[in-house]
């Protein structure tokens, strides 16, 4: 119950609460005013530097293509290098040369895909880096003196004084003072944020942001190079990029497939050589030699490259980097690709009610008189008790009271009584009259302490409000209870549909609230969550997560307070609010710069999209092999009399090989936009998704290359 009122006093730092969840991405602000000019030039340059064997060796599929290119280059220079060619030497050299070029471009295209994806992150990192420069910090020495030192010399635990106009030198915790800070460098949000000591939410400051008013004493919490912005730069730049579990498993499969086709191709010359020897005798030397020409080293390497999964091999890392980038464009910083991938696997979302499911501010909807008072009287007392209350709830009470005709004259003797967590009420003292509003229990106690009676109708009114899903506040004047204010919780628009979508995707939502059971169940029903936990304490959060995880489920949650930190660390996906404490941010594996907890739902979608993109392109790549086999094998083995299998009626072995390779190379740049943007995600059940994607990428992957290779063959001037 105690968490309920804390929201009514927090100086609403979350300025985004009113934005509808899952709104169009264009509506969202982008942090990095990243310079995307020259992105492609830089990517093209990087595609060449990535040819360095030390870099290339990290991508097994493309490394094999790269080595193949070197061998085909050798047979272009000397076609007789590995055996006397059976065709006209000039023609053979031309073919080898063409193959070399296409293979080289295949490698370049793959490098380009990775470079473009990386480039987008780099541009973001550069924008962030520009906010950071060495600056002079005023270190507060233990004896109270102030010493000016370079900000890079600050260590964890040091204290610094920041005065208006200064950059905050490093991440830290406000231990004294109050002031507004411009955090636009990291959040892109221009409105300044109030920072003060004591409160959980507003006491953490980030290095590189600027103090706009007053002065603060800050205790530094991060050593140089380990601050929030430093970590952010490292993350978006991909410097710390390690392969995610799925990527690793996929790499294994790609290596196995490459190995299999390497064996197939390496054993082909012996097999076809035996047949060629047979044809020499049975049909004539021309037939045998034609088969030998069809299995020259350059053609075998082409066959190998066509069969190994170059499409997914070339795009795999780009997909992963782009996934991180998409998260960053949502103004969320993920600490690892693993965390983004885990989003797609999440089974259960644990969501706080206030701020996530309902708007942060509850609004007064109705005054319910008790004890025989009229609505007008109640309105008057409510107005009196709320004039000093600047919270949105307080203002909504004032508005409602004024609408009902209540008036209240303030004079100088009036004094506002602030809300405190201990008293759990607030109000106004005027000429000895005490107007109070607050939790029903608190007001009961207040009235009793003043010698008053608690009317029986109060509990009825209280239950009535709870049943409507609202929060009841009692109001009193002195020892007399006047009535109950019905504070209505407003479920964020569009959330119901989102929860329905999540359910269809098999994701369960659990709402946590400090409200009582009745209120909680009404809100839960209205919002459409699957389960709720009422009167929840922070410990409940971690218990819920543990019990879900014990069933083998992956759990995602959001949090901002220090007492959320253990739960954030326990959850598989912990999304901390940027407005939250340093402890929460460190325990989480993602930080939302906009401090919008509803984004967790979007992150699930992004995670799924990332996995789907990878699966779709793998399926596409593997399915392509059928067409490539049917293009190449019948034409290069045509001398063995299996020309009738050339169902695409390709012109010749040379034309078939070159067409298949051109298709193989071009499909990489064609799919780069898809890899970077991600496959379109629809909130469907697994079976529907599989059906849809297998039709597009499986069946499409079988058919598309047949059409494309035939088309290229028709256009090619090779005979």
């Amino acid at each position, binding site marked *: 119950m105690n968490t309920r009122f804390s929201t009514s006093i927090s100086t609403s730092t979350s300025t985004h609460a009113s934005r509808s969840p899952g709104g169009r991405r264009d509506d969202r602000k982008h942090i990095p005013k990243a310079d995307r000019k020259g992105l492609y030039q830089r990517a093209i340059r990087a595609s060449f530097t990535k040819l360095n064997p030390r870099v290339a060796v990290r991508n097994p599929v493309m490394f094999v293509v790269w080595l193949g290119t070197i061998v085909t280059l050798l047979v272009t220079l000397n076609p007789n290098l590995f055996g006397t060619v059976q065709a006209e030497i000039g023609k053979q050299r031309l073919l080898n040369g063409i193959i070399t070029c296409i293979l080289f471009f295949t490698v370049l295209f793959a490098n380009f895909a990775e470079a473009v994806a990386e480039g987008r992150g780099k541009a973001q990192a550069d924008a962030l880096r520009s906010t950071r420069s060495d600056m002079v910090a005023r270190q507060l020495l233990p004896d109270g003196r102030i010493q000016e030192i370079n900000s890079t010399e600050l260590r964890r635990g040091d204290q610094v004084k920041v005065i208006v106009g200064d950059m905050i030198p490093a991440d830290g915790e406000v231990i004294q003072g109050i002031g507004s800070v411009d955090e636009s460098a990291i959040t892109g949000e221009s409105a300044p944020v109030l920072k003060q000591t004591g409160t959980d939410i507003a006491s953490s400051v980030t290095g590189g942001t600027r103090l706009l008013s007053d002065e603060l004493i800050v205790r530094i919490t991060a050593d140089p190079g380990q601050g929030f912005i430093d970590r952010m730069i490292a993350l978006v730049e991909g410097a710390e990029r390690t392969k995610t579990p799925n990527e690793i498993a996929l790499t294994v499969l790609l290596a196995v*497939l490459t190995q299999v086709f390497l064996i197939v191709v390496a054993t082909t010359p012996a097999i076809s050589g*035996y047949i060629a020897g*047979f044809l020499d005798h*049975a049909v004539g030397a021309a037939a045998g030699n034609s088969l030998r020409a069809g299995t020259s080293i350059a053609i075998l390497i082409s066959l190998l490259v066509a069969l190994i999964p170059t499409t997914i091999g070339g795009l795999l890392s780009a997909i992963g980097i782009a996934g991180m980038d998409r998260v960053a464009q949502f103004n969320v910083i993920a600490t690892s690709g693993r965390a983004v991938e885990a989003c797609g696997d999440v*089974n259960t979302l644990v969501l706080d009610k206030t701020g996530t499911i309902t708007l942060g501010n509850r609004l007064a909807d109705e005054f319910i008189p008790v004890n025989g008072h009229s609505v007008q009287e109640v309105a008057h007392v409510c107005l009196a008790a709320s004039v000093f209350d600047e919270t949105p709830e307080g203002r909504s009470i004032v508005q409602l009271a004024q609408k009902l005709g209540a008036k209240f004259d303030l004079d100088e003797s009036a004094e506002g009584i602030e809300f405190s967590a201990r008293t759990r009420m607030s109000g106004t003292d005027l000429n000895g009259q005490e107007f109070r509003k607050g939790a029903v229990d608190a007001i009961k106690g207040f009235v009793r302490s003043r010698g008053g009676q608690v009317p029986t109708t109060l509990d009825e009114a209280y239950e009535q409000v709870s049943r409507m899903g609202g929060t009841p506040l009692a109001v009193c004047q002195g020892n007399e209870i006047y009535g109950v204010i019905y504070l209505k919780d407003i479920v964020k628009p569009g959330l119901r549909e989102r929860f329905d979508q999540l359910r269809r995707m098999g*994701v*369960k939502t659990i709402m946590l609230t400090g409200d009582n059971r009745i209120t909680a169940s009404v809100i839960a029903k209205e919002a459409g969550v699957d389960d709720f936990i009422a009167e929840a304490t922070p410990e409940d959060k971690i218990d819920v997560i543990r019990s879900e995880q014990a069933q083998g489920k992956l759990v995602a949650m959001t949090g901002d307070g220090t007492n959320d930190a253990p739960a954030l660390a326990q959850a598989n996906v912990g999304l901390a609010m940027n407005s939250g404490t340093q402890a929460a941010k460190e325990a989480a594996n993602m930080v939302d710069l906009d401090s919008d907890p509803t984004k967790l739902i979007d992150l699930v979608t992004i995670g799924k999209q990332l*996995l789907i993109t990878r699966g779709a392109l793998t399926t596409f790549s593997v399915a392509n092999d059928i067409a490539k086999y049917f293009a190449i094998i019948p034409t290069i083995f045509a001398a063995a009399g299996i020309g009738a299998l050339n169902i695409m009626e390709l012109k010749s072995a040379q034309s078939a090989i070159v067409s298949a390779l051109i298709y193989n190379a071009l499909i990489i740049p064609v799919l780069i936009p898809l890899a970077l943007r991600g496959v379109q995600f629809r909130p469907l*059940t697994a079976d529907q998704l599989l059906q849809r994607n297998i039709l597009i990428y499986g069946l499409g992957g079988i058919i598309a290359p047949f059409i494309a290779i035939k088309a290229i063959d028709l256009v090619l001037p090779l005979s």
Partner: protein
Amino acid sequence: MLQGWIQIALTLLILVAITPFFGRYIARVFMRQRTILDSVLNPLDKAIFALSGVRAKEMTGWQYARAVLYSNLAMLVFIYLIFMLQGSLPFSPTGLNAPSWDLALHTAISFVTNTNQQHYSGETTYSYFSQFAALGFMMFTSAGTGIAVAIAFIRGLTGRPLGNFYVDLIQSITRILLPISLVGAILLIAAGIPETLAGPAIVPTLENPEISQAIARGPVAHFEIIKELGENGGGFFGINSAHPFENPNGFTNLIELVALLSVPTSLIVTYGIFANNLKQAWLVYSIPLAILIGFIVITTIGEYQGNPAVNALLGGQAPNLEGKEVRFGWAQSALFAVFTTASMCGAVNSMHDSFMPNGDFVTLSNLFLQIVFGGQGTGTAYLFTYLILAVFVTGLMVGRTPEFLGRKIEKREVVLASFLILLVHPIAILIPAAITLAFPEQLAGISNPGFHGLSQVIYEYASAAANNGSGFEGLGDGTLWWNLSTSFSLLAGRYIPIVALLLLADGMSRKQPVPATAGTLRTDTALFTGITAGVILILGALTFFPALALGPVAEAFQIVKGIG
């Protein structure tokens, strides 16, 4: 024509009809539930356990694998010694001496691996003692090993501990192989198959009573039934089930056909009972069944239509009966050829070498795929490994880390699954075949050069690597090179996958299962079954496309065009 099709349809019908009963029975045996034979066999089991000192302790994957390897090695040494010493051992009415060391080694390895590839003729190489004490013994234990591994694999997939290899081996023999063999052997004796320790019968020939003829015989009937039931396939006589003493009539042929596919088909249902998902079991069952029926149609059409070159001489269409027993005809010969290569039994009732290219294509494809019901136990395990691979390749497309039966498919699973199912086979077939074909005069011993010769070589290694054991025949395969190089394929094709399967199952059984939701990929749907079939064809079969193209496919075009 119609009669042939009815024979085929009836055989298939019987096979499918007994599957649920047999599958259920196997499941009961290995779930340690009561079975009808308990009263007789429980004391027997106890006696065996007491004598052998086996303690029914649960094994980890690696322990299970080690138990398989050590026990198989011990049996290998045991039967090799019998072969080498058979001259001084009893029951050798024809006084046969030890074969060459490499032939004995090849035979021993081939029988330990449940392959029964034979580079010899039984009646002139191995004594009765070698046949029943070494070969007959291995037919039970190697088949039992396969069943035990499959059961351990199924247990692992369904989240149970793997069990104890020795207990599983003993029970698979005492509860499944031995009782059925007993009944089957009696049926076969009744149908006219000999079971005797007497030496060859010496009879005067009909044409000239002055000249007598030796007719080989021996303890055949018991050997015959376990040969089929255990998917061993090693014939007592050189020409295997084409011999009138191994397979005298249509009735014995039917028994043999059903016996040789009964275990791998039933094990899929056993899986369904372990997983408590019979729907999935029957859907998975439909994949090999559909491939099998397709293959039967392709083969029988080829055999029925006959050889165009011969037909041209005859002036009309006639089935291809070259290399076939007339008592079986085109239909039952073709059916037997498809069944025996599908099931990794390897018994033959006709010469596969004499089939039309359609038959070559099908028998080779069966050996390449290994899952058209497949080997004793291993075929079922491979089928589910393909399912795991299909889950991995396409499962990402539903936006989650792929799961099979609620267990995540991660790096370890992909390494083991793709290694055992995609890589071992090409290594064990294509590499030695390429070496052999690089030196056709020195190594290959091909009797029919050209496309068909290529098929002969590829077939021999495929048969070894898939642990099938049937021969394309027509290959001079009794040489040192053939004995040793196929031994490599036999061992690689048997033990690498078994170890990988057990480790895979072990890892799966230790994973925390994730509850299924609407977002979980369901693997028991027709759609997913279709996808698995596609993955099998693309990943499993396309690897061998070049070899098939230059072998049976080129031969088919050659026959049509009449070149060469």
